[in-house]
């Protein structure tokens, strides 16, 4: 290889190196720009949207509870009114079996409505369980936001452990069916067995 083509070769190599470096730097810049967007807008948005879910489900659960609270006394009232009616209209009822059957039907329906209202009441407990899960995820989003911000977060393992312990003291949150929680009880029956073994 003559001198000219050697120069040409090393110039090409140098150009390739610079291009690669430039590509890498540009990629990093793009990532930084994306990260900046994530920290400035996306993560705070995600956090506030989770807050919105919490607020909406809480309001819906309260609205449902208000409707249940106003309906339960009505269902109870129907039962009482039927009792009153049976006394007032004893003569008519003694003469006509169809009236008795009709009243029995109304009474049974009122009882069923009462049972279903009780189920609607208990089902609103979902807001507590989902709310706890959403709060946890929102906390995680906030932590991620802090870590990616210019100030950065405390990556010291000991400090992280202290924070984790502090969170654990407040509870671990609802058990997750998909997670490996070997220490978790399967339900109320397991709790009862465990406690009865401890004399409670």
């Amino acid at each position, binding site marked *: 290889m003559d001198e000219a083509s050697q120069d040409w070769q090393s110039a090409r190599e140098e150009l390739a190196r610079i291009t690669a470096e430039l590509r890498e730097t540009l990629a990093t810049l793009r990532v930084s720009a994306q990260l900046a967007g994530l920290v400035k807008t996306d993560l705070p948005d995600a956090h506030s949207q989770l807050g919105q879910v919490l607020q909406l489900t809480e309001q819906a659960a309260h609205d449902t509870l208000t409707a249940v609270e106003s309906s339960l006394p009505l269902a109870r009232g129907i039962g009482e009114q039927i009792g009153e009616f049976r006394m007032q209209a004893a003569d008519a009822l003694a003469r006509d079996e169809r009236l008795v059957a009709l009243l029995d039907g109304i009474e049974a329906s009122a009882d069923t409505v009462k049972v279903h209202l009780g189920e609607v009441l208990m089902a609103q407990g979902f*807001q507590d369980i989902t709310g706890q899960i959403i709060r946890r995820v929102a906390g995680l989003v906030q932590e991620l936001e802090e870590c990616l911000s210019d100030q950065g977060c405390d990556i010291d393992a000991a400090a992280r452990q202290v924070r984790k312990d502090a969170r654990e003291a407040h509870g671990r949150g609802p058990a997750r069916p998909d997670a490996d929680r070997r220490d978790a009880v399967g339900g109320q029956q397991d709790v009862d067995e465990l*406690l009865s073994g401890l004399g*409670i």
Partner: protein
Amino acid sequence: MDKSMKILIVDDFSTMRRIIKNLLRELGFSNTVEADDGDSALPLLKGGDIDFLITDWNMPNMPGIELLKHVRANPATRHLPVLMVTAEASREQIVQAAEAGVNGYVIKPFTAQTLEQKISKIFERLAMAS
């Protein structure tokens, strides 16, 4: 069991407090007060007229397990019956609550029947002990 006893319900979720309050009313207990965590429950307990405490575990500021320890450490409330109603489901925590002196432990989500059974059991045991 005295149906007019005063029951303190402690939970950070207002919907859950409302559910428990309604269940208790259906069971005939209408004398209830509420607090949203251990810190706000303590002043109510200092009043000395609370007969029964139902508390969640996972709450901001003072969690239920700390509240239970406070209740047992204070001579005025040492014998107060405490029922924990919580989603905390690890065996370790249930044992921890038992060691701290809890009288009953209901896991969320729960049924009206479970709550009724546990309340009855607590008061049956207290009646037997006295």
